[in-house]
């Protein structure tokens, strides 16, 4: 048992370390001037992703150093979006810092529901130069900015579609390599779909998982997002892509695959019940954790190419300040702290965070070392995927204001095909007609 004196010493050292980190993150002037935010309370919310969840553990440091009391919650993705959509639409002031969800970027920013952050970034008393907003990957900043160059959110993640094969050992024995094309996915899934292992695993967010296949087949969600929003879900390419993607889930997926959440995909990989998955990388990384049955056998690769090219899904989410927030300067203090280089690096080194948005962190030796998994340089795959996404506008379909409608319809269409309620052609035609009706209801001229 430790003595009170040693406990005090430890606490003092911990506080000193936290103070050092805070000073490094550019908040030393604030400290020197006392605690100008003492007594301020902030309501902060984000959906339950790894970064906001791990950030929760560091909140006492922030509260101690700034005097700000943070009320923090991380509900599920759908619940978060519904709640915040309602809150923002009424110009409510219940929240001081909120996550800007990728698929709601256009709706929430175009409606003027978030405050631009440029004034804080320009003001050296609010943000020291070495905080360096340019360190955040350009692809992510571009999404969170308007045409005039106002930045509304500081991105905390890059969600990249990648591929993982948990039982690469079996594939090696069969003479199979990591798939580089859609055809090879089919071969690998078929060959490993036996002995209690599902050859292919995927979660039920088909609106996120399917479009990379759709684009790989040469199709798209809209004819020319963001300007031409005519849905193109019933084209020959779209039907072929839906048929192929549904075939993977139906014929090689685990029992109940249509109700699989992303957590279940991770669990299936970790428990050795699934082999191959194309998912957001953050849900694939845990397959290499020490407690995973596939830790020694898992391999990673970039998302494979389709007949028409390579279109890995990419998403980002960002901390922003709602226009109704009462104390925006204190809100910015939280964002600045949460997104400092030091905090992001601590998230990587202390909590194993695998989806940083700062280039300096992604290119750091610590991150590369952490993501060197079974001789796979996953950090390199991660960065290259972001570059592919940032170098083209193929993700534009996802941030148009009516995408949430089409997202749901794509999900229903895939479910109808997988559960054999309809053929791919019929199901996609139904999705197309429903999408047109919904878009017209939104006042979109087609």
């Amino acid at each position, binding site marked *: 048992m430790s003595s009170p004196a040693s406990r005090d010493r430890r606490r003092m050292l911990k506080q000193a370390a936290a103070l050092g980190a805070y000073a490094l993150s550019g908040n030393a002037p604030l400290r020197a001037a006392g605690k100008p935010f003492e007594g301020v309370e902030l309501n902060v919310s984000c959906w339950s992703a790894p970064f906001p969840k791990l950030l929760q553990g560091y909140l006492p440091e922030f509260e101690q150093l700034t005097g700000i009391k943070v009320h923090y919650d991380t509900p599920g993705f759908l619940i978060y979006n519904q709640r915040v959509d309602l809150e923002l639409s*009424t110009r409510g002031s219940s929240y001081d810092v909120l996550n800007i969800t990728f698929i709601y970027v256009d709706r929430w920013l175009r409606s003027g529901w978030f405050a631009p952050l440029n004034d804080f970034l320009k003001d050296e008393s609010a943000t020291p130069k070495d905080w360096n907003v340019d360190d955040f990957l350009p692809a992510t900043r571009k999404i969170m900015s308007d045409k005039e160059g106002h930045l509304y959110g500081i991105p905390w993640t890059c969600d990249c579609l990648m591929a993982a094969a948990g039982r690469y050992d079996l594939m090696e024995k069969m003479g199979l390599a990591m798939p580089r094309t859609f055809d090879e996915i089919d071969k690998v899934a078929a060959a490993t779909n036996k002995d209690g292992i599902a050859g292919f695993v995927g979660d039920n967010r088909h609106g996120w998982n399917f479009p990379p296949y759709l684009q790989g087949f040469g199709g798209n969600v809209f004819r020319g997002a963001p300007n031409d929003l005519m849905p193109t879900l019933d084209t020959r390419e779209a039907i072929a892509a839906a048929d192929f993607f549904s075939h993977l889930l139906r014929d090689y997926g685990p029992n*109940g695959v249509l109700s699989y959440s992303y957590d279940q995909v991770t669990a299936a990989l970790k428990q050795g019940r699934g082999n191959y998955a194309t998912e957001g990388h953050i849900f694939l990384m845990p397959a290499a954790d020490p407690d995973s049955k596939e830790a020694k056998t898992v391999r990673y690769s970039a998302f494979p190419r389709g007949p028409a090219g390579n279109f890995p899904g990419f998403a980002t989410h960002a901390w922003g300040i709602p226009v109704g927030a009462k104390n925006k300067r204190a809100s910015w203090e939280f964002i600045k702290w949460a997104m400092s280089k030091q905090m992001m690096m601590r998230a990587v080194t202390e909590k194993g965070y695998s989806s940083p948005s700062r280039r300096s962190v992604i290119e750091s030796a610590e991150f590369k070392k952490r993501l060197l998994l079974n001789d796979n340089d996953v950090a390199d795959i991660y960065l290259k995927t972001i570059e592919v996404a940032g170098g083209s506008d193929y993700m534009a379909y996802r941030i148009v204001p009516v995408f949430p409608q089409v997202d749901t319809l794509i999900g*229903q269409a895939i*479910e109808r095909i*997988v559960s054999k309620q309809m053929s791919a052609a019929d199901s996609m035609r139904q999705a197309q007609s*429903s999408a047109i009706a919904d878009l017209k209801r939104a006042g979109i001229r087609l």
Partner: protein
Amino acid sequence: MEEAAAQGGYGIERRQRVALLTGLLPALLLLAALTVAPALYLFVVSLTPATPTNPASLTDFSAPAQNYLSALDDERFTESLWVQLKLSASTVAAQTLLGLGVALLLNRRARLVHALRTVFLIPMVLPPIVAALIWKILYTPDVSPLHRALAAVDLPVSSLITNPHTALWAIALADTWEWFPFTMLIILAALQMIPREPVEAAQVDGASPLQLFRYVVLPYIRPAIVVAALFRLIDSIKAFPLIYVLTSGGPGTATQVTNYYAFTQAFNYAYWGYASAIAVMLTAGVFVLSWVIGSRGTVSSTHG
């Protein structure tokens, strides 16, 4: 003299009426504020193309019938009504029959039976989201003890909630588990109100248990069964947590009831006007059912 007395009586009646109205007025105003005003606002919004991203849409009454006309033309809406009908019919029938059966079994004066009654109430008093979570675990093959037990005896079962032929019935089963205690309670209360004399007389006359139930017990408890079933029918239209947690309306739209469809239109798509129109139609349906319940209640109390 008589005239004066009559006038005095009339005056008293009038004063009583005024006093009654004055006393009731605050309650009536509160009722109007809490129920009528929101309902009216819902109706007003249903006459607009309201969406939160366009504040002007909330006061755009240029095409007031548009949402209603769109709904009639919307196959997903009409399909959701059919799904609703199947769910309501199956759950009301199952809950009424099961509630009746269990109530008959529990209609005894014994300590054990009394304890059992309390146990049977557990599903009903659970928060709906907890009940939904229990069934989510049971229906998820990866973690379900039910699926594992069946797989252990070489009888593996495909996921019930991802199969379009079973998903709705899986929800109906969970709903029945959760709500049959309600019908059981009402019917049990009615059973305990039956006077002993006619039952004993029938028994003395040699009536079989079936005859006793058919000709003596059932006529007494019929009004209670009807009221319980109608209450469940109204409540079934409001089914939400089970569908939200178990299937999200899927696979495809196999379990998308009207209530859930309105929810997605309002909160996933932000079509507040259209969702309000659907909600108004649902409310009208529930209102009609409430009226039926009211009139049945009046009939049974008059004839009872």
